[in-house]
């Protein structure tokens, strides 16, 4: 909020404001200034050039990232399928020597760290 000046200040204000406005009215560019279109396009080009590299890279790498996630999921499903079908036969001799229970338990115990690390990897990849 601008204060209302005292009467003696009022003349001073009018004098200075008048002089400045006159000076402003007489201050004209010697030649035409750059047009709005030129400036807008310059700003747009600069924006595209200096756009944060990680944003651009993120956009470019999005399909590859999805492919990676799909591939890992597919591999995990295949691995689980294979183990659930083949584990009893593979682990049969092992089970005979161990006291851990049936071959299925051994297979599940073997899979737990694999699944845990895969899930952790997936989560970390998504966070990054």
């Amino acid at each position: 909020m601008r204060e209302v000046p005292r009467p003696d200040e009022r003349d001073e204000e009018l004098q200075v404001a008048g002089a400045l406005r006159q000076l402003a009215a007489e201050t004209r560019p010697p030649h035409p200034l750059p047009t709005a279109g030129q400036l807008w396009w310059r700003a747009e080009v600069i924006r595209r050039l200096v756009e944060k590299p990680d944003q651009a890279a993120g956009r470019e790498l999005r399909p590859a990232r999805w492919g990676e996630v799909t591939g890992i999921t597919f591999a995990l499903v295949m691995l689980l399928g294979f183990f659930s079908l083949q584990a009893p036969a593979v682990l049969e001799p092992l089970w005979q020597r161990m006291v851990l229970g049936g071959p299925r338990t051994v297979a599940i115990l073997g899979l737990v760290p694999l699944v845990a690390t895969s899930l952790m990897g997936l989560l970390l990849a998504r966070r990054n």
Partner: protein
Amino acid sequence: VARKSLEGGLGLDEQQFERFHAATATGLWAYLRRLGGDPALAEDILQESYVKFLGRVDPSSGEREKRAYLYRIATNLLHDRWRRDRRETMGLSSLLRRWQERGRDTDTSLRMDLESAFNRLEPRERAILWLAYVEGYEHREIADIVGVKEGSVRVMLFRARKKASLVLDRQEVKS
């Protein structure tokens, strides 16, 4: 048809910017010219200011806020340029002296009188006077543009006005 910026792009589309530019360009150039003392520098800073403004402006802000934001960018850019010039060449005070001398050398018309009176003020005083009396900004807005407290603007404006009035009186007496 207005061209729009790509996803996540500039604050204003081309048509909106054209209107804003038409309303502000000449005034901003005059402000920079009188504050900086050099037409080429004024044009340079003007371009840089608009480019920065477009990249950062909040599209939802009002016209007056947008305008004040543009002036803040321009004022900061001019200060940066002064700082750089001072480091690189001779110093702000001698630059100011040069402009003042140039003004005095050519004191032949009323325009030159006003110009030289204005050039005798400190850069910040010039900025505050111009923003208050030519652009019509409130103290709060000037404080935001120039980067000082609102209370300081009141005091600085009072002093600058006194100084300017004194210089103008002297010139009237001389002529």
